[in-house]
């Protein structure tokens, strides 16, 4: 039986593909869209992923608190904006919301304007719970302290530890791991139901290849899927269907634009230098792929999610640093997974 044929609709290519009313302002994948339709496209993709937190699943006054780590980059800012809107709509429609947001900013002391930026965020979205922690707080977490031999009295402990690592990649990796551990700790301490991350398709694709290159390929299905994670708190990635460039465009076109609140990272050199990290390499790579072949980026993420994660019930031991399930993925009697051994070769002695 031949498939249903789509009725041939006459499409005016000079108008927005969806509403056929306004002029297009941006081309998404192959469709030219006007600002309004593009805005809807972005919001819908995110909200769709929040299905499990719909109003009817929550009792009034009993809303679940979800932790939203805010890096002040375009993706997490956009996530905050769209979810704020979503909550407003939920409240309008039914008088209550399905969840509430706890926005957490982790300060790595790299930027002085972080505090000021956070203030403007709080002003624009006052309805949420806010808190800020220092990245160096991660050194006081159980297990980390001892593993890294951190001198917690020293305010520069973090730099000292990073200084001991053997490469820029290792430092970058360590920072990412510490950040994640801290966020998870906050979520656990305050009984947050889940952590809502702002990673885009592009970012997830970068991480797929980067973690593969670091020897942690086996962790990918567990750490990048929505739902239960080996860290003990469920992770969600509602931005997983949007490309970074789409998110950046969305943030810019908002009125008032989010650009003022988004921190701009220092530009990294385009050519591979001694200090280029594996993550930088993948970021550069996918930046170029995203331009011409966005569907390929999405395909990478989709493929990885097809891999079957280790069943969490069957995990016996986990890497002390990154929480990855250890069985078979580390040398005998090692406390760390292969990926983390690269960063801390001396820790296994």
């Amino acid at each position, binding site marked *: 039986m031949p*498939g*249903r*044929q*789509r009725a041939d609709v006459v499409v005016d290519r000079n108008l927005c593909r969806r509403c056929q009313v306004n002029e297009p302002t941006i081309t998404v*994948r*192959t469709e030219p869209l006007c600002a309004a339709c593009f805005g809807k496209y972005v919001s819908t993709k995110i909200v769709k992923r929040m299905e499990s937190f719909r109003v009817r699943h929550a009792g009034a006054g009993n809303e679940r608190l979800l932790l939203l780590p805010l890096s002040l980059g375009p993706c997490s800012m956009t996530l905050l904006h769209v979810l704020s809107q979503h909550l407003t709509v939920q409240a309008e429609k039914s008088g209550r919301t399905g969840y509430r947001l706890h926005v957490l900013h982790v300060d790595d002391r790299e930027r002085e304007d972080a505090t000021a930026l956070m203030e403007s965020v709080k002003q624009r979205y006052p309805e949420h719970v806010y808190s800020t922690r220092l990245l160096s707080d991660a050194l006081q977490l159980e297990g980390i302290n001892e593993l890294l031999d951190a001198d917690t009295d020293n305010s520069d402990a973090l730099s000292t530890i990073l200084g001991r690592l053997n*490469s820029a*990649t290792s430092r970058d990796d360590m920072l990412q791991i510490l950040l994640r551990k801290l966020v998870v700790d906050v979520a656990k301490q305050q009984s947050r139901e889940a952590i809502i991350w702002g990673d885009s398709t592009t970012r997830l694709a970068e991480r*797929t*290849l980067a*973690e*593969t*290159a*670091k*020897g*942690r*390929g*086996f962790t*990918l*299905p567990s750490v990048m899927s929505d739902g239960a994670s080996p860290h003990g708190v469920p992770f969600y990635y509602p931005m997983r269907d949007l490309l970074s460039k789409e998110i950046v465009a969305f943030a810019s076109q908002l009125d008032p634009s989010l650009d003022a609140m988004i921190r701009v990272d220092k530009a990294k050199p385009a050519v*591979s230098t001694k200090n*280029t*990290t*594996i993550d930088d*390499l*993948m970021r550069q*790579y996918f930046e170029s*792929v995203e331009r*011409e*072949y*966005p*569907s*390929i980026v*999405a*395909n*990478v993420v*989709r*493929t*990885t999610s*097809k*891999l*079957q*994660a*280790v069943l969490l019930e069957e995990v016996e031991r986990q890497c002390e640093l990154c929480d990855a399930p250890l069985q*078979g*993925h580390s040398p005998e009697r090692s406390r760390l997974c*292969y*990926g983390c051994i*690269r960063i801390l070769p001396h820790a296994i002695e």
Partner: protein
Amino acid sequence: MAPHICQLCNTSRAQILRPKNHARICAPCFIDIFEREIAETITSTNLFQPGERIAIGASGGKDSTVLASVLKTLNDRHAWGLDLVLLSIDEGITGYRDHSLDAVKRNSVEYDLPLKIVSYEELYGWSMDQVVAQIGKKGNCTYCGVFRRQALDRGAAMLGVGHVVTGHNADDVAETVLMNLLRGDLPRLGRATSILTSTPSATMSRKETEADGGEVTITNVKRSKPLMYAYEKEIVMYAHYKKLDYFSTECIYSPEAFRGSARTLIKNLERIRPESILDVVRSGIDMAKLVPNAEGHPKGAAEAVIRNEVEDEAEGGCGGSNAKEVVSEMAQMEQKLRQDEQAEEAGTETEIKLPSKVLDGQRHDRDLKPDLPPEAALTTYVQGQNHDRHSQTDGQQLPSDIRTVPIRTKQEKKSSRKATRDAPVPKQRLGQCERCGYLSSQAVCKACMLLEGLNKARPRTGIEVG
């Protein structure tokens, strides 16, 4: 500044900075540890049986030359009793393969190993020169690729050898892992990272093979890659320090193709962190275990991964350069993915074409795998011309698999079906070619089909070429 002392023997001056881990060692220690690591790979995976007959796929390039040299050395040193033979494929392209074949001949003399050169003419009745004379320069790459795929297996069977080894190194495997991640090709991920691959009959019907008098047919040839954990740079270094004789052929990759991309990434990764090549391989091996099989269960560690002829694409190059005619692989994939996305959103069925003939030299064989969701199916194009290890010894890019499937003699009818995005990684129906018995998911394998076309058009009087 005082010169460094070798970290292994603590005696000689260290002349070498080892690519794998930046250890500083002297040349003799390097040769020693290189050989020892390969020996370790072989023994820890039980790659060979004592007394086994092994055909070394020899292209004359650095990988197969080093492979031959190391295997010979280890075989003698550890008395494995292996019966080694060099196997070389001659496509019959005048002026092209000659130099590398000469190198292989010299290797044969040097290592005192018998050499068998198998030509396309011998295997199929047609040399590439003859094919081109018949069909012209367009589409000839397809023939070469298809023929090459089977050539090693057929050649081995002719020699009565059931195990072929190829010179695939860590860089190759790492590239393939990244490439398959980029392409979203999970089944191939499994095959690429297995050190030993097999055909279903080899694993399943040992009893039958014995009953037949243990005859080797082209359907039960094992394939392995002992150099899988050896860095390409170290292979070059080994060849240099042992003064091995090889013919270095260029690899041309079309710039936007997946393999070219993956190769660049690997090279950059190596610069950032040399261990990352093996880390990619390790990740690939681990991820392959997580690939769900048809029932949706993870495969788990399989001992011998099963190859599928149809999966092996014409990644090897051929003599003629059609780089400009080849549409960028990535652009093709992008287009297909988009169409599928749009179709899915519109709720229409995704199009599945029936098998078509080779039209413009390009395979439209997406549907050799009808069960594959469109994103995963790959149209394969002759991608770059790969003259070195990917062409001669292993036109089969890394054999394939997913799971044990009973061999069928009849081909199932393909039905067009709506492939959903969340379809589990699909089954592949393995069967045998009616004519030659080679593995195929068609009733007649690709090579036989092409040959049929060629033979029909062959004039009755012989054509002299050249």
